[in-house]
């Protein structure tokens, strides 16, 4: 069961991929597709591995990541 919801703001992300590199559990994957602004926005492919350590939201230089508890599941 996934109980974590990771939101990436596509308007703020600049595609530096610091989150993909520094997530201790490799939750993020580089995306192969470009968005409207020409940025490869990473995707949280493995949300089930997330431990809510919040390192990604602390390391994101553009304040684009939020890690929440998923209240929908």
């Amino acid at each position, binding site marked *: 069961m996934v109980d974590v*919801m990771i*939101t990436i*703001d596509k*308007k*703020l992300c*600049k*595609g*530096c*991929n*610091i989150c993909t*590199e*520094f997530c201790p559990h490799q939750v993020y994957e580089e995306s192969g597709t470009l968005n409207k602004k020409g*940025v490869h926005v990473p995707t949280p492919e493995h949300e089930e591995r997330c431990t809510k350590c*919040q*390192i990604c*939201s*602390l*390391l*994101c*230089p*553009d*304040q*684009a*990541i*939020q890690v*929440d508890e998923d*209240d929908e599941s």
Partner: protein
Amino acid sequence: MEKTRENRFIKYLRKDRLPNIFCAGCGNGIVMNTFFNGMEMAQISMEDVVMVSGIGCSSRIPGYVKCDSLHTTHGRPISFATGLKLANPDMNVVVFSGDGDTAAIGGNHLIHGARRNMDLTVICINNSIYGMTGGQISPTSPHGSYGSTAPYGSLENPFDLSKLVTAAGASYVARWTTAHPLQLSSAIKKGLKNRGFSFIEVVSQCPTYFGRKNRMRSPIDMMRWMKEESVVKRKADGMDESELVGKIIVGDFHKKEAPEFTERICQLSSEQCPPEKPSAIRSAYRGDSSA
């Protein structure tokens, strides 16, 4: 509680100014996050914080934050902050500046701020290069590093800012890199809580200029380099000098209790102007309307 699905630090930022102007992967955004995190850890409200900055990429940070801020002339943020702190000693005055600001043009202001032991928190974002003006070598560029003014490698020896400020008389000195966000947050917390001159040097990445010219093109390469090359102070103390060449020594460098300048000046004004004597000086410093 309603969830906004926004980053937890967005509430401190001016949303209409986002996305920020920094390059993809710039360390300034990370320093901003760690500052908010440290401020939350120190339980200080944004209402009590004043941010002062000089000129440079890093000095654009206060412009994005919802707080009182002062964007000053190049190299002089510590002088302006000194005036601010003396005018209102209750505020937490935080200076955000880069290595060009603190080490080059404002080196004098830095050492004199430290000498007076003013109650300021100076966060120096050291990216080892002049990023805003096109990648010139700065006083903190490592020996042998390349820049647009050093195509054959820098021949100068860099400043060790933390040692300089310790020698000048600061009461709290720490150095971390942007690859250590949690340690940096707790250093910022300690700096904000400390009564006296707190200097936090953040070794940061500039992938656009420093990275591109020094074979570390991406922010990830730069952060990996900082993480691998950093040695904690406790471990570095037992190591030989030859082993530490090219390493970044991180950790808490110095902490001591020392008399603080604002307190001294308030004490002087109350000693020299006893309550029976009405005085403009006392009312200026203590906010006594009865005088």
